[in-house]
């Protein structure tokens, strides 16, 4: 600690250069904090997902390919299946193209399969009885200040029979999901599948997925095989798996987010290493005679090496702390404003720890060569300018 004032003074010897370098480090770690927050959100999104006794059947090639609704009866005929229901998805916007509203259309009994989602009995009944009825998640309703009884027109990517893309819904209820990992799903609007199918211009009689309740997930494999065998060699081959496996598959795709984030951060930090490495090398080059003086008055080669490494680590840590603090505030601000629909974890201790370790490693790497130079310098040569 007694060397800290010396390291600090050396670091800010050329203030503009240090400030600009610090800003670069800050920007890199701000980006790190934000991206790691997103990556962390995706990585942990699948934790604690219920649905141990549910299977999902969807298009074999990809999720979202249309499947005939008539498969429901065939699926329900498979031994071990208790109940099957279906749904479809399309996109809407509210008033402004920026205000996205995902819409899922469910068959009448679909919500029976999700007892863990809280919907008041009267809202549920109203949804069942009202063809144009819709249920909004708490987050969605809060976001657009919707209340039960509101009539909500949404612009969509689903054309109606009359050529209009605007679908109008009567908000009959609000639903809530208590699982924090699924909270972001409160951003979806539920509608009746019949209303969708009667109103849409194309794709009639098709659904995008079936959700299936089975007697026991232990029989999931034979049941899945039996369900997929129904459509084998057809133009709508299916893939059936447990809901948890489906989530796991999605999260594997989210892992690609981790890869993308990692690649971006790799490029950012590589640039940072070059930048700060150059700054440190320059700073040490300018101070060769000062280091010679330190050695002259008794600082050992190891002391000098420590001072240079301390300087580069301090530079990186300072920038990292400022950048991560800014990221923490920014993520908190975004989450406060947009709620949990936004896939960002709070910039927690683990992200800070990762960031600070990374900063120390970069500090050590960029300081190593200049430190070695400072350590090896010969006093008489340095003092005579050789």
């Amino acid at each position, binding site marked *: 600690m007694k060397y800290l004032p010396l390291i600090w003074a050396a670091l800010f010897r050329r203030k503009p250069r240090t400030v600009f370098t610090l800003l670069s480090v800050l920007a890199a770690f701000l980006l790190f904090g934000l991206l790691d927050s997103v990556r962390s959100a995706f990585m942990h999104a699948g934790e604690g997902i219920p649905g141990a006794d549910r299977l999902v059947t969807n298009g074999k090639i990809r999720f979202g390919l249309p499947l005939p609704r008539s498969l429901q009866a065939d699926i329900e005929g498979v031994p071990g299946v208790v109940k099957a229901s279906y749904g479809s998805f399309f996109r809407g916007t509210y008033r402004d193209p920026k205000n996205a509203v995902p819409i899922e259309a469910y068959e009448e009994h679909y919500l029976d399969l999700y007892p863990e989602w809280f919907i008041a009995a009267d809202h549920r009944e109203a949804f069942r009885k009202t063809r144009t009825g819709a249920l909004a998640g708490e987050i969605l309703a809060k976001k657009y200040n919707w209340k039960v009884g509101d009539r909500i027109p949404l612009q969509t990517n689903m054309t109606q029979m009359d050529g209009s893309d605007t679908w109008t819904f009567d908000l009959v209820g609000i639903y809530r999901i208590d699982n924090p990992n699924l909270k972001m799903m409160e951003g979806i609007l539920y509608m009746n599948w019949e209303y969708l199918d009667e109103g849409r211009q194309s794709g009639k009689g098709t659904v995008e997925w079936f959700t299936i309740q089975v007697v026991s997930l232990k029989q999931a494999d034979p049941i899945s095989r039996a369900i997929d065998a129904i459509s084998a060699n057809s133009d709508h081959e299916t893939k059936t798996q447990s809901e948890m496996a489906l989530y796991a598959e999605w999260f594997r795709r989210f892992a690609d987010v981790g890869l993308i984030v990692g690649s971006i951060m790799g490029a950012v930090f590589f640039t940072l290493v070059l930048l700060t490495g150059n700054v440190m090398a320059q700073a040490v080059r300018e101070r060769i005679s000062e280091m010679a003086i330190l050695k002259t008055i*008794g*600082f050992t080669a190891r002391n000098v090496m420590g001072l240079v490494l301390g300087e580069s680590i301090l530079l990186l840590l300072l920038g990292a702390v400022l950048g991560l603090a800014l990221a923490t505030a920014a993520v908190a601000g975004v989450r406060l404003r947009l709620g949990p629909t936004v896939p960002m974890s709070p910039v927690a201790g683990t992200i800070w720890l990762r960031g600070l370790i990374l900063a120390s490693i970069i500090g050590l790497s960029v300081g190593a060569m200049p430190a070695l130079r400072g350590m090896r310098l010969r006093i*008489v040569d340095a003092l005579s300018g050789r």
Partner: protein
Amino acid sequence: MNLIEIRNLSKVYERGVQRVEALHHVNLDITKDDFVALMGPSGSGKTTLLNLIGGLDSPTDGSITINGSRIDRLGESALAKWRASNVGFVFQFYNLLPMLSAQKNVELPLLLTNLSSAHRKRNAGIALELVGLGDRAAHKPGELSGGQQQRVAIARAIVSDPAILVCDEPTGDLDRQSAVDVLTLLQQLNRNHGKTIIMVTHDPKAAEYANHTVHLDKGSLVEAGEVLA
């Protein structure tokens, strides 16, 4: 009593294929509390000898015994520790760290000790008072005159109370009055505080402040035109 005993000291520099013998079998004794001026033309080996006495460089041959210790046998790290507690250095161009205040510059050698921050500050204050710059402690080198900077450098050299001060052209960059002030200060440190001082100078007037003068020419000690063994 000899504080410094130099025997058959030689120093050869090799610059590429060129071989330069900077010192050639030098023998010299310097007693405790002495103030010696090293004089000679450029390239005569004065600074080389000073660097060897100060433990900044190692001889090619011969021995340097200071206060009973063979410093020519010390490794780099041991030599650094020896310098920290036995020698103070004063250079022609002051060599203060520009980003530190006078106080912090003087405290630098004390960072290598176990003294507390308060103790270091107090000792640095005393050293600055001793050189007459107690009121300039907070000033950075750039805010001080050349003479004042050199006095800060002297305060830094004496703050850890070394027995020896080695001074390389300490007045070479100063005006006449500042030079007189610095030389008077060095003389006081020698006479009143018992510092053994070895000073390289080109200036005969500066040399007059020393107790005696040693001349070097072409790497050998000379006196009145004669080469000494």
